[in-house]
């Protein structure tokens, strides 16, 4: 318990040090690959706020990611890049507005319906860009100029420089991680987790569950928008496929691979999955077959539910007296305690009374 925070902190420092040093030691291709990985990590991080902490399996986060990229495309002129100060907030606001509408409709539903409805809304945005002439239709849209970080004509950061771009992306990821960390540890984050663990109890305690979930959904979409904005800037191209559900599902795999119960888990999952794909792509023609088998193996390697992954790999310290694993793990072996059922039944109620006084 006392050892784990410092171990986690030193691991974090080492990782961050490696990330900062990377452009100085790695060839250009890997700097670009690292930028891509950092931005996907940001997307995975944002999805985890909803899936891991909110218990809402969203299948439309790619749509937020892609929509933001399109916003950058629309705001980039034919002969000059868009101003980051204008285009980024605009992209984030548009995505937030769309997410608020999708969230307000989807959150009326539960569980399986939520998955299907978010999936359907994501596809709706996909078809909006695929079937209409908006953004070049199915051909997509080229972004010939990267957005400009400038004040009064003075260029602060030149995003055309791959190394600078990488550091901007990395800065964004660190900022997003700090934001999510702060959110998760705040009373808002605890209320969100409480609604995930026991909705009825959270409601009866007076938490505005719907509003809390909607806020988490919109905030998460806004982080996804930042990732999508820079991702579109990096590749200079957006296409409807960026909004499709295959990407949403892939990001979900990243979240689960890295673990849902920590802020950094999805980041590690994203980097691991992208690294793995890169190796597979260069080795096998039918690499997707292997990716699929790995995803299936991942599901079976976690028989107690994916929530347990983080607990299995690294038993995490409890924060603020609440351990996110406990509610999922406790009911896992009801039969063992069946003979003493009355006593078991009473004790959580007593605990509940104490913890919420």
């Amino acid at each position, binding site marked *: 318990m006392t050892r784990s925070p410092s171990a986690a902190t030193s691991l974090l420092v080492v990782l961050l040090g490696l990330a900062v040093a990377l452009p100085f030691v790695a060839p250009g291709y890997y700097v670009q690959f690292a930028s891509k990985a950092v931005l996907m990590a940001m997307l995975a991080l944002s999805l985890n706020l909803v899936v891991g902490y909110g218990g809402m399996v969203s299948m439309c986060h790619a749509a937020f990611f892609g929509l933001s990229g399109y916003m950058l495309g629309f705001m980039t002129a034919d002969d000059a890049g868009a101003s980051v100060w204008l285009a980024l907030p605009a992209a984030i606001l548009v995505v937030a507005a769309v997410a608020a509408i999708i969230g307000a409709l989807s959150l009326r539903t539960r569980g399986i319906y939520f998955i299907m409805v978010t999936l359907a809304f994501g596809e709706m945005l996909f078809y909006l860009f695929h079937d209409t002439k908006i953004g070049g239709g199915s051909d997509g849209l080229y972004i010939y100029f990267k957005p400009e970080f400038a004040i009064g004509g003075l260029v602060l950061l030149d995003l055309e420089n791959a190394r600078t771009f990488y550091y901007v992306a990395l800065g964004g990821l660190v900022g997003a991680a700090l934001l999510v960390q702060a959110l998760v540890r705040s009373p808002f984050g605890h209320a969100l987790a409480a609604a995930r663990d026991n909705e009825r109890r959270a409601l009866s305690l007076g938490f505005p569950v719907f509003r809390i979930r909607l806020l988490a959904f919109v905030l998460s979409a806004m982080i996804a928008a930042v990732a999508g904005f820079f991702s579109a800037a990096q590749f200079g191209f957006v296409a409807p496929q960026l909004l499709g559900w295959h990407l949403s599902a892939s990001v979900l795999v990243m979240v689960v691979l890295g673990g849902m119960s920590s802020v950094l888990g999805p980041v590690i999952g994203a980097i691991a999955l992208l690294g793995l794909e890169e190796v597979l792509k260069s080795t096998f023609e039918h690499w*997707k077959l292997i990716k699929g088998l790995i*995803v299936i193996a991942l599901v079976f390697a976690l028989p107690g539910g994916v929530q347990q992954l983080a607990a299995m790999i690294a038993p995490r310290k409890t924060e603020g007296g609440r351990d996110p694993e406990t509610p999922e793990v406790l009911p896992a072996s009801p039969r063992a305690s069946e003979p003493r059922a009355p006593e078991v039944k009473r004790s959580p109620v007593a605990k509940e009374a104490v913890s919420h006084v």
Partner: protein
Amino acid sequence: MDAITFAVQLLNGVQYGLVLFLVASGLTLVFGILGVINLAHGAFYMLGAYLAWAISAYTGSFALAIVGSLVISFLLGIALEEIFVKRMIGRDHLAQVLLSFGLILVIDEVRQIVFGKDVHSVMPPEWLRGSIQLTEVLSYPVYRLALCVACLVLAAVIFYVIQKTRLGMVIRAGAENRDMTRALGIPFDVVNRYVFAGGIALAALGGSLVAPVSTVFPGMGDGMLILSFVVVVLGGIGSVAGAAIGALLIGLTDTFGKVFFPQISSILIYVLMAGVLLWRPNGLLGKA
């Protein structure tokens, strides 16, 4: 729009809706009975079409293509249930989503290895080609009419099995209360296996029947999967009657949308879905 065009579009819409029902009923049954969400449903639709193409190209027989595609996908469904799906029952939805996503990747790559990624077309048998004069001024492709009839017969069989047979009674009881059904000594694991394999077979059958009017191409399952989800969400999960209503609504909305609002036709069905969910969050015939 004159009356003839309207009638043709109406027939097209109904035909599309009937195919959608066939595919979506498998999805809704598998979820209603097994409690398993299967994103790979569309992949089996595509597989069914490719199997039908391969068999008809090899043997030259359309009937053999349909039956072969049905039997192979049914056996595949039994094998998959045995290896993967039965371990997913009772797991959280996220695990099921991931498993079926993995299955999609595997099925897609295996399809590419076995059948390649070319676009194909399937010829219907001689006697189902051409058009038929329905009235003096209205002619309609024979195969599309045959497709409607085939889907209607299948729909009747599905309803008969579920409403009137002992198997259907067990299926309905299982959807209502799984534990109680098991406690009554019903071999639910066996029922699960056949429901899953049957659901897969319905998806594949849909794909193989549609092959002559559509083209057979790698991404065909994706669109069908999403549409099936919309149908299931509209109708209410586990409700076959709901799936029928949802499928016809979607089929007609999509077909008439393409005529009246070609630019935004594919968005219309989602607007319809959003409207229904605002009104009834659990679908038209869904239980709360």
